[in-house]
């Protein structure tokens, strides 16, 4: 990095403190916007009413089933999308033939929105976790595909030379010894983006008719219960933060070799 860390940002505690300050400032701004009437009354949820809304969701026993149901297709969608994005990205970047063969097809399929896939997902998977996982996987797939493709493309070619010089031939061997570690930073950045992307696609996926947080959010929005919408957003954020943090640890472990 360019410069020394700020004194406060040096310890985990300091960083947590700064993080909380950031969030607190945001909540204050939000409350101010809401009460000062920046937008029409009733259109911005009141941050101070969120605990009540959360309690309501909890006591009415909608919360946990929704969370658990979402997790099922979230995890499957994320896992499948990440794996395939990584696989196709790696293959496309390492084989010029595959690259050319799929290039146009990828361009055609890439921009199709999850909402359009929803319609077809039902045809293929019926209304099921599989269908929702499929829609989520698609969003995650592209993010990982591009990140992996670009990272693999940019692995320093001198290390391939090195591998060949030491008789480490064969695609698989070089993929494991050079491509993977050499592209790891970029691939990890893609996976991390994908973890967030999957949540962003969740609502779209649950338009399918599969129960979960997206569906609850939708029906809350449909009757103007914006506080509830925010409650689900926050719960999604919480689960996301957990997964992102967990992933951050893994990333740090795997990439110990980087100069800090």
């Amino acid at each position: 990095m360019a410069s020394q860390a700020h004194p406060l940002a040096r310890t985990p505690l300091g960083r947590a403190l700064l993080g909380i300050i950031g969030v607190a400032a945001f909540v204050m701004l939000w409350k101010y916007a809401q009460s000062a009437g920046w937008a029409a009354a009733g259109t911005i949820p009141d941050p101070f009413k969120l605990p009540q809304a959360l309690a309501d969701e909890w006591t009415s026993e909608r919360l946990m089933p929704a969370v658990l149901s979402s997790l099922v297709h979230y995890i499957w969608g994320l896992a499948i999308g990440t794996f395939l994005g990584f696989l196709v990205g790696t293959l496309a970047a390492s084989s010029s033939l595959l690259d050319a063969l799929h290039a146009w097809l990828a361009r055609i399929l890439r921009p199709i929105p999850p909402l359009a896939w929803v319609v077809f997902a039902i045809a293929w998977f019926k209304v099921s976790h599989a269908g929702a996982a499929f829609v989520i996987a698609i969003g995650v797939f592209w993010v990982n595909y591009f990140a992996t493709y670009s990272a693999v493309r940019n692995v320093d070619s001198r290390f391939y030379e090195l591998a060949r010089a030491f008789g480490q031939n064969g695609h698989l061997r070089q993929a494991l010894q050079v491509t993977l570690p050499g592209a790891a930073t970029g691939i990890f950045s893609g996976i991390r983006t994908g973890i967030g992307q999957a949540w962003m696609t969740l609502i779209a996926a649950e338009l399918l008719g599969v129960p979960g947080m997206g569906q609850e959010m939708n029906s809350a929005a449909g009757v103007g219960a914006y506080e509830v919408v925010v409650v689900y957003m926050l719960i999604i954020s919480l689960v996301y933060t957990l997964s992102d943090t967990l992933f951050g640890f893994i990333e740090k472990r795997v990439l110990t070799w980087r100069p800090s």
Partner: protein
Amino acid sequence: DKSLEIGYMPIIPISQAFIVLENNALESAGVSDPKLFQFQNGPAIVQALLAGQLDIAYLGIGPAMVARAKGADIKVVASNIVEQISMVALGSLSPYFDNGDANTAFTRFKADKGRNAVISTFPRGSVPETVLQYWLQNQLGMSRDEIKQNIDIIYQGAAQVQQALMTEAVDGAAILEPVVSIISDRKSDAKVVASGSGMFPHQPGAVLVVRESLINEHPELVKALVKAHIAATEQLRDDPEEAVKSVGKYVGGGRLPAKIVLNALKNSRDQFEANPNAIIDGTRTMHDFQAAQGTLKVKVDLEALFDVRFYNDLVKE
């Protein structure tokens, strides 16, 4: 025992479904554990029906026609509601309907404000959109060009329509319950300037469809379902207070204040209509209107769409 798959949307117009699901009508008909699928929009139900999922579904007549035309073996065995669309106007627009001829309200609005009125409704081809167009063209007598020149129609989902009305991003909306009640509750200057029969007489709304295979294999079950449906309709007309709990559980996932649910039910009580015979003509009118508008692209065999036997038999009994 038969395991049933039932699809629905969490909206007021299909309130009968919620009452049937909440009382033990299905259970006594031999269905112990129905699988429920809640959808957020019509197209998803259509796809599910086409994909062979769902034995029973509650959906708008529009999507039902599409599903039938695309080859789904479904029959409309009962109606849920008719004439349920209302035209809500906000403070900016409603005075033009209060003082003066409704036919010229939009042109006067434009002359005064120097801009087109912005009216929100559901996506093109949906029931509210069709009714809005029908009202503008056949009731207010506006030509398509006049509509284009005086009104900006925008197409949104339920949540967006509400948000747009609340923030006054639009001047009005052609929309369903419970949005009408929610808006009336929160915005005192919002007014219903045209409703139900005034917009599109005998306009069909949501219907109960059943798969043909279910009709063939388990006619007694379908009969029990229609019977419960009729009873639920009566309850909605006679005693909306009683229905609030069941309906509130599904509409908005139980997050709507009971007051608003009751309000919405009371507003709609005269529109609940179980008799499928009552909507056949309206359906034809709507079908032809949509075809003329270019919003309905598929050929629908309306004769094959309805199966009124169950209702007729039950009424005779």
